């Protein structure tokens, strides 16, 4: 259990706002990329790297470190912004996102960027990778923890449920999966395209501890992480209700903002909104 106080929450909220600004600036510079899903999950990934995880940015390969797998790999700008802000690499790198030769690939590539624990981008594969990491932790009697972030659309991949089954089967209480429940995928709302609902009951049926929170509420994120720490004998799924595009009014909840980057005026407007 980690102590939670109002000051910390404010510090993390402030940090998440900085991360969102970096996401907008980075995507604006790149001219392409996934805006909505990066902004929406910014509070969760900020909480992980600035509060929850036991990591040492100067030693990205430290064996005892906690690990994070961005299973919804298209939110790479979010991961990069957090890693840069946390000191894994200079923030100037962010300007190279998606450009030829950059370590900041369109989707996270662990062979190109230190700090990225798993190479992702093909949906459904990251959570299996996270299960493998958690299994290794158990095998080696290490007490590191493994965190993952999945999209709600991503849950449509059968592989996610194969991983969910394995995680419960092997009693991986060192594994926590956040589900970024923003209700949207590319072709429309998840409920209309291919419903993965109800999500909590599915994870519960697979043998997971299930928590439901507002994923844009920092206090709820921290409290859920605290709860997950004391769960024994099974993995924890945190179903986090979020607003896709959170923080920029004209991007929020808009399906068409899934895979496009802000341009010109939009960049200025988004940054202005994130300045308040």
């Amino acid at each position, binding site marked *: 259990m980690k102590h939670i106080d109002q000051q910390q929450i404010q510090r993390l909220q402030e940090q998440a706002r900085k991360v969102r600004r970096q996401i907008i600036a980075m995507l604006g510079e*790149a*001219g*392409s*990329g996934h805006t909505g899903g990066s902004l929406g999950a910014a509070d969760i990934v900020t909480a992980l790297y600035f509060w929850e995880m036991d990591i040492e940015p100067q030693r990205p390969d430290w064996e005892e470190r906690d690990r994070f797998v961005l299973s919804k*790999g298209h939110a790479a700008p979010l991961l990069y912004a957090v890693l840069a802000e946390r000191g894994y690499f200079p923030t100037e790198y962010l300007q190279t996102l*998606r*450009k*030829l*030769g*950059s370590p*900041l*690939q*369109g*989707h996270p*590539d662990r062979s190109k960027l230190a700090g990225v624990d798993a*190479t*992702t*981008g*093909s*949906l*459904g594969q990251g959570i299996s990778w996270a299960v493998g990491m958690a299994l290794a932790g158990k095998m080696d009697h290490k007490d590191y923890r493994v965190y993952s972030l999945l999209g709600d*659309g*991503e849950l*449509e*991949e*059968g592989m996610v449920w194969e991983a969910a089954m394995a995680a419960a089967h092997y009693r991986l209480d060192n594994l926590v999966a956040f589900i970024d429940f923003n209700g949207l*995928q*590319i*072709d429309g709302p*998840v409920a209309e*395209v*291919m419903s*993965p609902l109800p999500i909590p009951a599915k994870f519960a049926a697979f043998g997971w501890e299930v928590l439901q929170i507002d994923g844009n509420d920092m206090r709820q994120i921290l409290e859920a992480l605290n709860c997950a720490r004391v769960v024994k004998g099974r993995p924890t799924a945190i179903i986090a209700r979020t607003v896709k595009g959170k923080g920029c009014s004209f991007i929020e909840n808009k399906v068409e903002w899934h895979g496009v980057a802000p341009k010109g005026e939009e960049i200025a407007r988004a940054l202005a909104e994130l300045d308040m």
Partner: protein
Amino acid sequence: MKKIATRDAYGKALVELGKQHQDVVVLDADLSKSTKTADFAREFPERFINAGIAEQNMVGMAAGLASAGKTVYASTFAIFATGRAFEVVRNSVAYSNMNVKLCASHAGITVGEDGGSHQSVEDIALMRSMPNMTVVVPADGVSAAQAVFAIYDIKGPAYLRLGRPAVPVIYQENSPFKIGQANRLRRGKDAAIIACGIMVGKALEAAQQLAQEGIEVAVVDMHTIKPLDEAIIIELARETGAILTVEEHSIIGGLGSAVCETVCAQYPVPVIRMGINDSFGQSGGPDELLQYYGLTVEKIVNNVRDLMRKK
């Protein structure tokens, strides 16, 4: 020069095909705006099924629909259609000889900024290794549209490889297009270029440049990788004595390999294979990547010169 993406041509042709044939059903896996099946979905919502982000299930359902008499066109990015769903394609579609057309967009490195995880450079190799599978790689929008209709007539599995960026149109609307019959676009006796997909246009440009130096190269659009037009390959080997293959795909297992298999067994001549040289793609602009991986007119010209020295 007019430019159109082969995926755009696919989307439009699919609507026409749907008007002509009631048995056409289209599937997608949450990428209908990118693969352009959204056009069909708008026109024929009752014949469109979104599988969600579940490519294996999409292909499995396609086989089931086909077994019940539907002609199924199933689309997603090439990496997921041929990679994620490979064994479903192999067993439920090819092995069981189902009438499923896997029409995959965003093939090759010209996917661009999304990076190596999304750039399929192995799909031709995977698809051509399977019995029963017809493999078509159109060079431009016009032939892509023709291919949509041509694979309908096959009554069996087919793979149609489509690209993301707009590429120059090289054919007239009424140019002949026949599955299994390569198009001879230019005659020449000094060397032959056999290309597919977006590299056909570049091969033609290279041939024009070489002609100015007095080097006459034949150019062939091998739009069907399987069944392969072996007759034209042997003819070219005999006429020119040297062959350059060019594809936006790994040099392992694709067009170059297919041509070499025929040349080695039937009429050995020197061959140079141009393509992605056993590496993965990466993020960058489509044209920058073509440059980086050496898929340029300039490199084709240089390779033809090298090839002629080998004769």
